[in-house]
């Protein structure tokens, strides 16, 4: 196993079967994990803020800090390794309602909505999502299998399958 750590405002993609992509301390930040089971390609983005217009200079130095610059790059990099949009399994985690350094509570929700708007416009469906709450999370994606785990503080890993959003009435 080869662990690749994704930092805050960072992104990694891999087509190496032994790779495991991991990112930590998702408070109001959001992790976007994508996996193409046919091409064997995985990618993980950890972004902090919704819109690069908030700080264009920062965005040009580090596009992964913002949803609108980071998400397209994540997908394009994965396509470069052989992934195809229609095969991608997409999972979204984070966006907790925690106070950030600006004393603002709602940045987690704004991050989530910005991401969902970008994905909907790009024609990408979300397969599983765990957002909100008020705890920090850690996630990891296994490139060989596409399996994905979430961990909250002081808790064990929970596997997130590719369909964890059912909200219909039956």
């Amino acid at each position, binding site marked *: 196993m080869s662990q690749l750590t994704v930092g805050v405002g960072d992104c990694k993609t891999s087509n190496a079967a032994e790779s495991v992509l991991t990112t930590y301390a998702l408070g109001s930040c959001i992790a976007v994990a994508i996996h193409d089971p046919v091409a064997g390609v995985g990618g993980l983005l950890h972004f902090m*803020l*919704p819109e690069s217009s*908030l*700080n264009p200079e*920062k965005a040009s130095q580090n596009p992964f800090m913002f949803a609108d610059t980071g998400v397209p790059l994540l997908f394009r990099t994965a396509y470069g390794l052989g992934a195809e949009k229609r095969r991608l399994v997409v999972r979204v985690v984070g966006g907790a309602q925690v106070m*950030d*350094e*600006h*004393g*603002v509570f*709602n*940045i987690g*929700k*704004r991050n989530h*909505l*910005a991401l*969902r*708007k970008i994905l*909907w*416009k790009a*024609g990408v469906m979300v397969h599983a999502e765990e957002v909100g709450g008020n705890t920090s999370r850690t996630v990891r994606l296994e490139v060989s299998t596409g399996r994905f785990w979430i961990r909250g503080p002081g808790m064990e890993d929970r596997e997130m399958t590719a369909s964890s959003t059912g909200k219909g009435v039956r």
Partner: protein
Amino acid sequence: MEPNEIQIGLAAAVEEVLETMCFTSVLSSGEGAAPATMEETLPASGDEGPPADREVAVPAEAEADAGARACTAELRFEGNPSGGCRVSVPWNLARAVGAGFLGLEEMEVSDSQTEEVVCELANMICGSVLSRLESEATFRIIHPELVPPERGAGFEGAGSNRWFDLGDGILTVSLELQPAI
């Protein structure tokens, strides 16, 4: 039905509709037809954080002008209670919300699509509020229609009004309830 219950229902319904299908967040909201006078505060340049609680100056002339350029949809509903619901959105904001709903760039959204989105917002907001307030009743919602701008954003007479600041403009909702005799 307590007025406060209606305000809470309106707030929850609008947030749910805008977030779930338009991917738009509500920055703040309040009772009434529009926010009272507020001061404008801009984020400091270079500040990478989001704007703090936004406050907007709305002088009388600007309010009237904005009202004349609003897209307003109204529907009636029958049941216990019966009544009506009206949603009013400044035109540019309506187009932006429509773009979020349809997954398009703003410039790709036609006028008729914008109008249809506002009508569907009225439909969903009304349905959501009524279901929250009267979960056991049956309602029939009549197809929403556009309202000429000169009729204004709220109902005349008694009704519950609430405004919602979406960052790029203010959306207002009016709910009028007529209990069965």
